[in-house]
């Protein structure tokens, strides 16, 4: 009986998620045009200029754009790979696993440096550093933290100020949060000390960068760790309330990656879209208001080398390794 209830619950849950998109937009060009279906973790607000640029260059193509979290992107695509033509995600490890497991098709005519693609199937098209976002007003009196060590010292010094008022990704929900966390942990033990102190100050955990940035702007939290700087930069409406910092000790630079499904209904369109995405067209066309830093732009190259697209990314996706990591994280953060 309990089993049946559990099954029914799962079924309900899956039914619920079936249409439960964060965003779903259809950008039609004309009524009887071909449709490219894109599954993405990138918010429409940020990605819209790219889509518009693509449609301007290639008239007659409609785009169905589905947005959900990085982990959900992976799960949904794995469940129904025929339903989408292009998959875009900031969780490099999950994307790499999709390619490793044979879900992507090779695109031999895309030329990128070897660090920016894997197997000619997974292509990085942005370079986005993991950033610290702080509330400008709250830090008016304080020196802005420059490194993780600075944050640790600041939190230790002012526990009352920061209790319940810091935020970071819930790595159980967010694929990108997990990627940032594992890369942090791999690089330095500072990560664990930071998580322990944040956990002891009852840090808030978030599924997505957007909410975190909103909360920093509103003053609900004062500091958000491992946020996508590109999202924060894109929020021009709250630019005077927040400040974006790059930790100086070691930067984690993520590449937003895209792949074309091996089972795509529109393989030509998918290839065309990937070519556009990896070209330097879209950010040059949007000079000035390009919201995503392209791998071709000089500004994006500054923060440091991006997380390597290599099989090492698969290590933290190992079930036992992940369980171990998540439980350690939980014991540090959830108190």
């Amino acid at each position, binding site marked *: 009986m309990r089993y049946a209830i559990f099954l029914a619950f799962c079924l309900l849950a899956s039914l619920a998620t079936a249409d439960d998109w964060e965003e779903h937009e259809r950008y039609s060009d004309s009524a009887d045009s071909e449709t490219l279906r894109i599954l993405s973790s990138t918010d429409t607000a940020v990605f819209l200029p790219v889509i518009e640029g693509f449609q301007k260059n290639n008239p007659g193509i409609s785009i169905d754009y589905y947005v959900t979290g990085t982990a959900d992107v992976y799960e949904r695509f794995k469940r129904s790979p025929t339903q989408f033509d292009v998959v875009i995600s900031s969780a490099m490890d999950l994307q790499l696993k999709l390619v490793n497991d044979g879900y992507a098709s090779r695109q031999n005519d895309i030329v990128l440096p070897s660090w920016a693609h*894997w*197997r000619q199937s997974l292509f990085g098209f942005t370079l986005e550093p993991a950033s610290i976002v702080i509330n400008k007003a709250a830090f008016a009196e304080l020196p802005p933290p420059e490194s993780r060590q600075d944050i640790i010292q600041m939190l230790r010094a002012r526990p009352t100020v920061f209790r319940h008022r810091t935020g970071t990704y819930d790595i159980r929900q967010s694929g990108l949060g997990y990627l940032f966390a594992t890369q942090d942990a791999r690089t330095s033990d500072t990560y664990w000390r930071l998580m322990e102190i944040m956990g002891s100050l009852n840090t808030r955990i978030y599924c997505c960068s957007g909410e975190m940035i909103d909360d920093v702007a509103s003053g609900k939290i004062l500091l958000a760790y491992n946020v996508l700087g590109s999202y924060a930069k894109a929020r021009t409406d709250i630019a005077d309330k927040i400040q974006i910092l790059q930790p100086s000790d070691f930067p984690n630079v993520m590449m937003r990656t895209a792949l074309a499904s091996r089972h795509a209904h529109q393989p030509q369109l998918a290839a065309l879209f990937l070519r556009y995405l990896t070209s330097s067209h879209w950010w040059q066309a949007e000079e000035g208001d390009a919201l995503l830093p392209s791998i071709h732009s000089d500004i994006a190259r500054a923060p440091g080398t991006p997380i390597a697209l290599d099989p*090492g*990314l698969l*290590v933290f996706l*190992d079930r*036992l*390794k992940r369980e*171990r990591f998540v439980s350690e994280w939980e014991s540090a953060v959830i108190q």
Partner: protein
Amino acid sequence: MNSRVEISGSLRFRTAATLILGVTLLAILLFLGIRSYAATFAQQSQDSILGASLTSIIDAATLRDGVIELDIPYASFTMLNTATDDRIFYAVYNEGTLISGYEELQLPNLAETSEAVFRTSRMFGAPVRQVTATRILIDAHHRTRITASLAQTQDNLSGTLARISRHAAMIGVGFFALAVLLSIWATSMAISPLKRLADSLTRRGPQDLSPIIKPVPTEMVPLVASLNNLMARLDKSLTQSEDFIAEAAHRVRTPIATVRSHAEMTLQRVDKEENRHALRSMIRAIDETSRAAGQLLDHAMITLRADQLEVQLVNLYDTTEEIVLRLNAVAEMKDIHLTLTGSRSACIAGDSILLQNAIRNLIDNALKYAPAESCIEVEVHQAPTRCLVVRDQGPGFLIDEMDTLSDRFTRGKNAMGTIGSGLGLTIARDVAAAHHGRLVIENNATGGACVTLFF
């Protein structure tokens, strides 16, 4: 001289072909050898990395209070990074239950304590190299076995192999080309003494039958020895023939001349008409015999010499004039007017003895057949074609015999009553042929024979 030689293959070709065939086989062996060595080597290096990676994974497994913990080191997978971004798959089983990794990865059956096992299999349709190892985990109260398997696609390996094959092929082709050049060179070197021998033989004069004295390679000693032997025999036989002909001429002519002079002397002394008639017939027969013998010997000499002309520059006019002067006495006896006209500078590279023979025979013929009180014109021309023409006012040739008259011992039907052996025109024709010329027989428009030697 330019006799045809039956050809059976070429020594140079045969040697070169044998060498090249050997070289081709060697080149192919070289290519296959390098490739298989490289394949083994490349596979070994992939295996060693896979093995190291699997060891680092399986060593990371621990058993704590009966629970298996597996903390795969980051480097386990990064070390498998290749230029072609090969895919990797792994699976970890505990007593037959998958605890992590890909359930699709098939594991070979492993004995409990066996070493790591490598094999080539398929995963998701792609060929992979797979390594599987097992390990016993023990804690205070538990003992359990884990088996881990790691597989990697072989894109990089096949790329490496293709590259090595390409290089091996290039080395093979280079080796082949060099060896072919070398074989051709070696072959020419090997047969060059043969060519030198042939050249030196070709350059020799007709009379040069001396032995070859230049040193030759060992392999050619039997050939050169036989050749020297043959030439010595030929020289001896030629000398013998010439001596024989000279001896025969001497031995035949002298007795005939003696018999003739006796017969003439007897004729002076005999008065009886029937005896005189018999004697005249006899003298006539003797003349005929003498002439025939002379021509036969001439012909024999020509046949002997025609193969090896003693070529020198001969003035055709002077030679003819000499003969005309000598035969003028005979012509005057028959009241025949013998004239010589033409180009004084007509020269020919030829054998003077043969040419004299031919010219004498032609004028002799004309003298024989020309009626008394007629003219014989001899002309020598240098241009437009070098030739010697003899015209008489005799009966001429019968039209239907013209083709066959110059055959040996053939005489015209209208030659009855004239002394002759039927060899005169044959001699002239053979001499013309020996000098790459020809003999043309025709009748004058005004009657009489016209014989032309073209050179």
